[in-house]
């Protein structure tokens, strides 16, 4: 780092005695701080005359050797300290998470969830989450069943909070091959939250696959007529996988290239608006909030085009899907502080 006096001089472009700085002066100011010239890069070799002024060039080789040892030592110390630190940090985050989990629990009651979000200034209209498919029993993964349950819970929370669109990103896309089963499972979870009468209608969708929303059964039609003046809440769940990310853009490029080869389009016609229209129609629009349930921010192949302005929330060192994380994400999105206690 350049020293304070030099920084000051560079910033003002004036020398301490008031003369304006010339190119030569600037070099003179910076010279002591520059690394040695490239030809003397290896520490064992003596630096050339123009390099960093060496106070004791005589004992240079052994000094370099010692320095190397010192570096390794410091590196080891830093990493030892860091692994201790990260343990403490994880424990701390786990405790905070537990406290929130105890204080804020949904008890499968939509009214409670609605109360939790009632003081928020805004809610996302399109929420997106990244889930992991973990089939390894030893790793604490819930496999397909766990994944489907998580999807059901998240859909129920969103429906209770009043978020109409949820997209679920899961890298491998296993859920896409079980759409009817997933639909049945989510419906069951919604039913356990809302009861059979007030159950919101659900449509489950995946890009390039037809929407799966079985016709409303007579009881629910009856319920709309008697219980609600307005139609019941409708929630759309969208399943995404890695092939809706970069691959979609590649597919679009292929199509455009083909059209251009047949002379139906000139490359100059391709604009961000065109791509945006195509992508949002075939996959989805931009989500407002992306919630990561993993321990760190990693997009894992999430559709790149759509995350442009999406708020990304993650709870550090968090693992697993929890209502408290979901709620903290919503609070963060509304720029509201979440206190201990309702």
């Amino acid at each position: 780092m350049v020293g304070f006096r030099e920084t000051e001089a560079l910033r003002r472009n004036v020398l301490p005695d008031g003369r304006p700085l010339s190119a030569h002066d600037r070099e003179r100011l910076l010279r002591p701080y520059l690394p040695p010239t490239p030809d003397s890069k290896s520490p064992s070799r003596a630096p050339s005359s123009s390099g960093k002024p060496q106070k004791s060039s005589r004992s240079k080789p052994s000094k370099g050797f010692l320095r190397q040892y010192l570096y390794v030592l410091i590196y080891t110390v830093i990493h030892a300290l860091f692994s201790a630190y990260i343990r403490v940090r994880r424990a701390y985050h786990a405790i905070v998470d537990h406290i929130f989990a105890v204080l804020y629990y949904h008890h499968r009651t939509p009214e409670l969830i609605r109360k939790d979000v009632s003081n928020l200034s805004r809610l996302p209209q399109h929420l997106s989450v990244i889930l992991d498919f973990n089939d390894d029993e030893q790793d604490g993964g819930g496999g397909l069943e766990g994944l489907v349950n998580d999807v059901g819970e998240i859909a129920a929370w969103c429906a209770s909070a009043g978020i109409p669109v949820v997209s679920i990103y899961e890298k491998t896309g296993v859920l896409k091959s079980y759409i009817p089963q997933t639909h049945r499972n989510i419906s069951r979870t919604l039913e356990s939250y809302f009861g059979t009468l007030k159950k919101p209608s659900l449509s489950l969708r995946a890009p390039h696959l037809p929407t799966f929303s079985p016709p409303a059964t007579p009881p629910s039609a009856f319920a709309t007529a008697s219980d609600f003046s307005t139609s019941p809440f409708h929630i759309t769940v969208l399943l995404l996988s890695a092939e809706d990310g970069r691959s979609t853009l590649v597919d679009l490029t292929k199509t455009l290239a083909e059209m251009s080869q047949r002379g139906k389009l000139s490359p100059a016609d391709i604009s961000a608006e065109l791509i945006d229209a195509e992508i949002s129609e075939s996959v989805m629009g931009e989500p407002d909030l992306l919630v990561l349930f993993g321990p760190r921010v990693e997009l894992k192949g999430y559709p790149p085009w759509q995350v442009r302005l999406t708020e990304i929330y993650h709870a550090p060192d968090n693992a697993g899907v929890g209502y408290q994380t979901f709620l903290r994400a919503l609070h963060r999105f509304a720029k509201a502080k979440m206190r201990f206690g309702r």
Partner: protein
Amino acid sequence: MSSSLHLSQIRKWFSHSPPIEWAIQQLRELLIGALRQGPVPQHVAFVMDGNRRFARNHHIETVEGHNLGFEALARILEVCYKSGVKVVTIYAFSIENFKRSKYEVDALMDMAKVKLSQLAQHGDLLERYGASIRILGQRDLVKQDVLEAIDDAVALTSKHKRAILNVCFPYTSRDEITTAIRDTVADYSRPMKPPLKRPFSESHIVRNIRAQSISIANGEPDSQKSSREPSPGNAPDSTNASDFGTGSTTLHTSSAFEHEPKISDAPRDPSPTYPDPETITSATLTDHMFTAGMPPLDLMIRTSGVERLSDFMLWQSHQNTEIHFLDCLWPEFDLWQFLPVLVEWQWRRRKLAESDRGRKRVKLL
């Protein structure tokens, strides 16, 4: 209030006194040297957010805030290149930023011009870091005089091979992706060159084959034939010969025609052949991005607590990039904030390497 101001003055005086400054300098060198001992990210990206808020908090001009941000950038670049990072990408100016006040935009442009032309005056000093500057973004949105400064700086540092500094200047990632798609489409809709005339002529080959078969027929017919054609066992000799005969005649006639009208025929080229669009992969698009040929993005850091990508490196950061949102403002960002992030990255890399090794061992067992 006044006492705290006084205190900060004393602290400032203390931390800028020569021995303390020297000690901090040495400490930095030691830490950077220590960082080099582990894995180091090859490509780091920074979103330099918070200059304006810093200026507002400290009651200084916005432009002054940007200036301080530039100094923070210089410090961080030094840390990066000394610790062995190959590519640093910074988000200097978004296309959206043109919507800011004209005064600020002009000041930023001026700053870019001044800093770049200063750099250009010190070509030999820059060489010590060995970093070449590249500008990523929409060139046609920049004014002519700034463009010249950019080109000078880029040309001057283009010889440097050790490291790269990507300056995203009028940049948005969507624009980058669009450009990449457009260029790919343009590449694929350029007709392929007609294949070069090969030095072998078909008629000559046919003649050769016929000559051979005649010599076979004349020489030892049975032994040669059985050894040469073991598979089509029931194919009679006569059909084979007639096949060659007809083939040769047609080829001969066609080649005879070809000799004269060849020149007039070639440029007409009724259906140009194009490369197959099915061969486009995400690697093709990656090669058409502004960051083509650079190592994948390992680490992305955004300061000032905003948890958004804001149209930066969408394509590059979507896979295994570790993204960190830090709460400090960019002018305050220094080694002390950067160090924990780097150490955490190193720690995770080592963990990954260990678990990989463990898995391999399991496989071997």
